[in-house]
């Protein structure tokens, strides 16, 4: 499929007022309200071409259906990467990751996905093919349309191509897994920020069968150091010295497989347990994330939910998955729980969960301040509301 044929198809839908659901890898299908069942299902997976690989410029242009793994492998051949850190990279696509506004754990170090986007090709609801930016790394000619499409959940335009800036792959990656005695948690997590060799990622994990393949393990801290060998070695010494002082009992160092372990944690962000779980993401800060996570665990316990928790200690994201014995048990309580959770955390959003009641939960949290402006933008770009209708924030 080409941008032109896609444009023709979308234009036709627009004429007929027919809704279109844009799909790609399906890895983030737990985000947003459920799609309109009568909508035309548009798969972007045919847009799987690497349009231009320009290692000498440290840039690459890809069609939106390119899988993150495919892109990563291509870039690794010239020792570069684009650290999107989205779950299930084998299936996830560039376009899906960008459109969903995915925010990964290493962004505090490398930047957000949006900040790697230097150009785009998009198809608007009326079939207009619009280009923005280009293949240069600095460009202030006109509005930054590309960044505007990022995070718009496919409701302003269908992203067909993204031009990206790349960066060098780190020479070394090392993981650390440690159990933390209860009293040291909050201090340990806030300390991650104070290290000289700032971790690329640091997670407090409670529950989630992500690493050890065991269930019901008490909380643990997983840290990733990245950089030159010298820096990773120095960071290792620094981390060890600190752990010693804090009285952390045992630590395993993961050299081979550190990246895979990291990926498994990112996968866990959106891993659902059948139809009996819902996963929330709360934007906290590194210095209050653990407290807020624990408060939510307490809340969930009141509802007799089981919880699995990941706290991204570097960015402050809190991921809480609540689950029950079966879909019915979850369904009986989830609406009241959702209300109670949003009373405490109005900005919490739902990022995973296949339970049918997702449709009535506050999937996107409280409305953003600039909702009237966003509505007007939607109206100007997609007046017939054919692109992913009803799925995004406040019906955008």
């Amino acid at each position, binding site marked *: 499929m080409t941008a032109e044929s896609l444009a023709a198809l979308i234009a036709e839908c627009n004429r007929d007022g027919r809704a279109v659901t844009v799909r790609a890898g399906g890895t983030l299908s737990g985000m947003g309200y459920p799609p309109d069942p009568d909508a035309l299902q548009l798969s972007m997976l045919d847009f799987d071409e690497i349009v231009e690989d320009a290692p000498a410029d440290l840039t690459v242009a890809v069609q939106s259906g390119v899988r993150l793994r495919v892109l990563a492998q291509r870039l690794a051949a010239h020792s570069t990467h684009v650290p999107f850190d989205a779950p299930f990279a084998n299936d996830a696509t560039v376009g899906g990751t960008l459109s969903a506004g995915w925010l990964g754990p290493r962004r505090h170090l490398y930047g957000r996905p949006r900040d790697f986007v230097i150009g785009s090709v998009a198809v608007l609801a009326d079939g207009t093919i619009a280009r923005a930016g280009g293949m240069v790394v600095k460009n202030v*000619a006109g509005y930054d349309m590309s960044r505007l499409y990022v995070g718009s959940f496919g409701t302003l335009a269908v992203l067909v191509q993204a031009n990206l800036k790349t960066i060098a792959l780190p020479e070394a990656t090392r993981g650390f897994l440690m159990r933390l005695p209860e009293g040291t948690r909050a201090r340990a997590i806030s300390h991650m920020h104070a290290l000289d060799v700032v971790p690329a990622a640091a997670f407090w994990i409670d529950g989630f069968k992500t690493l050890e393949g065991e269930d019901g393990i008490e909380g643990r801290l997983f840290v990733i150091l990245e950089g030159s060998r010298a820096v990773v070695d120095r960071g290792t010494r620094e981390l060890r010295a600190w752990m010693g002082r804090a009285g952390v009992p045992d630590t395993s160092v993961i050299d081979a497989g550190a990246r895979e372990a990291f990926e498994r944690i990112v996968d866990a962000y959106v891993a659902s347990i059948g139809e009996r779980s819902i996963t929330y993401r709360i934007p906290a800060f590194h210095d209050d994330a653990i407290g807020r996570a624990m408060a939510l665990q307490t809340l969930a316990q009141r509802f007799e939910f089981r919880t699995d928790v990941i706290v991204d200690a570097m960015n402050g994201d809190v991921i809480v998955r609540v689950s029950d014995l079966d879909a019915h048990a979850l369904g009986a309580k989830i609406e009241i729980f959702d209300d109670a959770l949003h009373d405490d955390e109005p900005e919490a959003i739902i990022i995973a969960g296949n339970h049918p009641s997702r449709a009535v939960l506050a999937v996107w949290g409280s409305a953003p301040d600039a909702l009237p402006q966003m509505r007007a933008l939607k109206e100007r770009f997609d007046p017939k509301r054919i692109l992913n209708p009803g799925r995004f924030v406040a019906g955008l």
Partner: protein
Amino acid sequence: MLAQRLIDALGADAVKMQPEDLAVYSFDAYTDGSAPSAVVLPASTNDVSAVVKIARECGEPIVPRGAGTGLCGGAVPIEGGIVISFARMNRILELDAARRRARVQPGVVNLGVSTAAAPFGLFYAPDPSSQKTSTIGGNVATNAGGPHCLSYGTTVNHVLGLEVVDEHGEVFKTSIDRPGYDLTAALVGSEGTLGIVTSAWIRLMKAPEAVRVWLATFPDVESASDAVSSIIAAGIVPTALEMMDAVMARAVEAAFHAGYPTDAGAVLLVEHAGFEDDMDAYEREIERIAKEHGATTWRAARSQAERDALWAGRKGAAGAMGRISPNYYLQDVCVRRSTLPKALHAVEEIAREYKLTVANVFHAGDGNLHPMLCYDKSNPKEVQAVVESGNAILETAIALGGTISGEHGIGYEKRDGMTRVYSTNDLATMARVRDVFDPQRRLNPEKLFPTGAQCAEVKPIV
């Protein structure tokens, strides 16, 4: 009538109406425009709202203005209107060192943020060469870059959210951390055409533990730009990678005694910040690449004072131009980094063809060229040659897959160049955003969009 209403709303000392006062606001660092109908100096967001409402009722356009250092006529009134100067909204409202962020009013001078953050071991990364005078509001509106934006990214990478007064005078807030459309991204770089920024949340960064600065000289611009392209192609993105040609280097040396060899064909200034542990390896690698491409001298600054001396030359480059020429026109284009050698060669050819002296000092690592075309304003032939060669440079950049502005913006100067890089559809798509935020084209009119685009020309073809 207008005057009285503004005075009633803001107080007499916040409104300027005298012709000699207005004249001061009729130009920026690029050009002269027309005198505004009034200049106001609001002290708060409420004041800005009040002004916008009055302007609306009186049919006056609004031109927001920071320090007026803009290089594309962005802050210049074209058809009169009310200039809103942020000179009094110059406070840092909040500095949260633990969370590494600050909330600042638009009139805060760029360097003031880093100065305030320094005691906490933090800094604000975007550093336009105008940072001692240009303001955060102006930086946000132009998405300003600077030498250190090579690895840290331009202004848009450092703005977390904005408070904005819209064309009705109503206030809205944006945040990059909330779901919904990324209005922050739309507003940054919108040159005052979508809304008036009344405060910004910005990101502060931890100061690096080690900084090194190296200086390499090359026999000519070609070899230096080959070296730049090779450094980038090797995956090395230093914190800054700046280049000067012979004309510039000599002028800078004469003005600042920065220690640049005066016989060099090109000077490359490289800075890397990060961990001390990495510095030697970095130094060896960059030195190797530089020498492979024919670097004739290589120096490493050994102290803060030496680092400052090497940078002083770069930072003062624009000031040193006065030694070369009574007037100069500063062009700003960005090309793919691998095409830097070609682009520079083309610039040289263009200058030769038009018999103009050109001096180059630029953000080489980004492919962001800044040829300075020297001329004498009193010589109409030279003025004409500068205009034509400036256009030729734009064409060259476009032909090399580049863009017509890397950091200075479109403003009034390059509005008609927009049709050379974007199709009608592309521009119409941008115009849709404008339609939403400023349907009447009252916010900084006659900027950014090509002439005529305000009405019929740039409408979507359906």
